[in-house]
């Protein structure tokens, strides 16, 4: 019995590794995804209709600051989050 359980676990791990490798473009990518991406990926709890959270941001000049809330007015505000890489 223990032998079969072990075989199933190994099979599941193998399937997971293959699946992640396909998604991430290889074994190295799969490692990168598990090690560096998954810990930072969160679905979040915000829903349409919720109050928009505020946050302080630094401007490109590196010294002045503003709040997201300051940029919301009569018009909709489209916020695009991202990085360079």
């Amino acid at each position: 019995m223990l032998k079969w359980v072990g075989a199933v676990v190994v099979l599941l791990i193998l399937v997971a590794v293959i699946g992640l490798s396909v998604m991430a473009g290889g074994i190295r990518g799969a490692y990168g995804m598990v090690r560096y991406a998954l810990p930072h990926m969160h679905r979040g709890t915000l829903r349409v209709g919720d109050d928009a959270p505020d946050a302080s941001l630094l401007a490109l000049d590196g010294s002045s600051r503003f709040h997201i809330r300051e940029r919301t007015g009569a018009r909709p505000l489209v916020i695009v989050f991202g990085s360079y890489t």
Partner: protein
Amino acid sequence: MQIYKDYKDHADFLTVYVREAHPTDEWQMKSNVKEDVCYAQPKTLEQRVAIANDFVKRFNYPTQFGIDDMGNGANDAYAAWPERIYIIEQGRIAYRGGMGPFNYHPEEARSWLAARYGEVKREASTAVPDKKNN
């Protein structure tokens, strides 16, 4: 950034720089090497500012731009990493985009704006939405 060009007369746009998704010292992508976008994960706010400025200059990026603190307050509040789009209207979330990269769909935000302000016809050469040209 086509969506900005098409709807800047109707909506405001704010881009927020959050922690790098594929830095050289973490999960680097071959495409970033090919495109010469090679940066280590910033350890200081000054490093984030420098990378954000490189990005804006390289793409002549037109929108308002803000940089998240090293405490990642904006990122945490919006579950933003690695990329995500929201639309805020009258202080509330009006549109919540999916988590990138797999559920990052700028065309959904575009549809929201189109439903509100009408579709803007685009030229074929500028119609391809992606991370840097949505």
